[in-house]
């Protein structure tokens, strides 16, 4: 695994080099500033598999570096692990909002660093295996028909305010649960009938729709502090801070209105009718460890259950439309 570690403290860099090398991570590049890191990343022929970043550095800090790196297409989903002494909530929030995948506070336990890197290595290997298994999949044209695997895959959606990867959302909650989850709530947003709606649609149409729905959710949650993650198909896990006055019905209406304003269409001009359902918002306080992570799956299950109580306006699928129109 090719790793880049960035920290302005030479002692930390030496410590990381020792800690990583005994665990077998020897393909390690060290640098002392964000500017140097950007230069190294830009000149690297083979992208790094993982970045380890400090937050507090002179000039461009680690959060700004994360944002800059995430804008590079080859680093859109690269695991970025913040290793920082900044343990306050505001730093954790801004790091994950910028695109951090995980967060370790200094002084760190060596075993903790090894454990997090093992998770990252598994993720990197899994992504490589997927690419090797389906070389065609990687080069697939956006116009190709959406597959079951496409529907199950979680999208990163990093260009949308508050949208972070699902695994990053889990890691965020694990980190924040060490401080306080007071006032935080989790809920799911589910688009019923996604498999039917996008049956025979192109990958481009499906991804565009998911991006638009995420954007609608994000717009409707502003100006609250929130994170949204795509959980596959039409499912979104959401976490808000200060959700005491949060009203599910209002949010659901607002999202529906926003999507109507967006006027979604398939590429052939047919209107795309998606009506997301918002599940009950559950308080996260008093949860810890895996309990807080499991809250996300429970929130999605609640939203899924809520779809049974909503009238679903059925739009004709592309397959049905082709039959109706006779081609």
């Amino acid at each position, binding site marked *: 695994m090719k790793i880049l570690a960035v920290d*302005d*403290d*030479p*002692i*930390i860099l*030496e*410590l990381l080099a*020792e*800690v990583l*090398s*005994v*665990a*077998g*991570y020897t393909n390690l590049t060290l640098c002392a500033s964000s500017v140097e890191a950007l230069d190294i990343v830009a000149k690297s022929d083979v992208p790094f598999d993982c970045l380890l970043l400090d937050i*507090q550095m002179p000039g461009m800090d680690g959060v700004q570096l994360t944002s800059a790196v995430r804008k590079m297409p080859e680093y859109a989903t690269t695991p970025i692990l913040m290793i*920082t*002494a900044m343990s306050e909530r505001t730093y954790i929030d801004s790091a994950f909002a910028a695109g951090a995948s995980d967060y370790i506070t*200094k*002084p*760190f*336990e*060596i075993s903790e660093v*090894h454990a997090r*890197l*093992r998770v990252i*290595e598994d993720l990197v290997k899994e992504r490589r295996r997927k690419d090797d298994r389906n070389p065609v999949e990687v080069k697939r044209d956006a116009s190709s028909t959406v597959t079951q695997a496409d529907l199950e895959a979680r999208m990163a959606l990093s260009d949308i305010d508050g949208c972070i990867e699902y695994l990053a959302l889990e890691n965020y909650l694990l980190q924040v649960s060490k401080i306080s989850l007071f006032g935080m709530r989790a809920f799911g947003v589910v688009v019923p009938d996604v498999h039917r709606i996008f049956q025979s649609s192109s990958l481009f149409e499906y991804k565009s729709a998911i991006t638009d729905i995420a954007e609608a959710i994000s717009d409707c949650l502003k100006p609250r502090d929130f994170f949204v993650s795509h959980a596959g198909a039409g499912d979104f896990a959401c976490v808000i801070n200060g959700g005491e006055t949060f009203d599910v019905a209002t949010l659901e209406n607002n999202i529906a209105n926003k999507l109507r304003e967006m006027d979604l269409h398939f590429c052939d001009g047919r209107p795309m009718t998606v009506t997301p359902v918002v599940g009950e918002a559950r308080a996260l306080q008093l949860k810890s460890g895996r309990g807080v992570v499991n809250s996300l799956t429970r929130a999605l299950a609640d939203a899924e259950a809520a779809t049974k109580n909503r009238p679903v306006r059925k739009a004709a699928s592309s397959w049905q439309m082709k039959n109706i129109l006779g081609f």
Partner: protein
Amino acid sequence: MKPLNAEGLSSGLARVRLRFIDELQVRRSRLIELRSQLDDQSQCSEAMKEIGHINHKIAGTAETLGFPSLGASAAAIDNIIDKTKAWPTGPDPALLNQIDSIISEMNLTQEKGDCA
């Protein structure tokens, strides 16, 4: 990931610990210099910022390298400085005591490290 090489880790950490102690000498000298600037209102803010930065770095590694008490003292100073936006009337006497105390603690750590 290959199985952990405990012996390798131990000797690697020992190397970094020595580097930390060498660096501690430099950091301590700089802290003494900065501490003397705190009485000058025109230099206080910048000096305090650098004191915070030095303590931030010590706090980040000291405990992992086997100096938990030094790490905790540095983290306490770093936290206070990080939360304080300005020093219109100079630093609080309690904070000055903490800075004096960590300068002594760094000296002790260094002496112990040199003997080890």
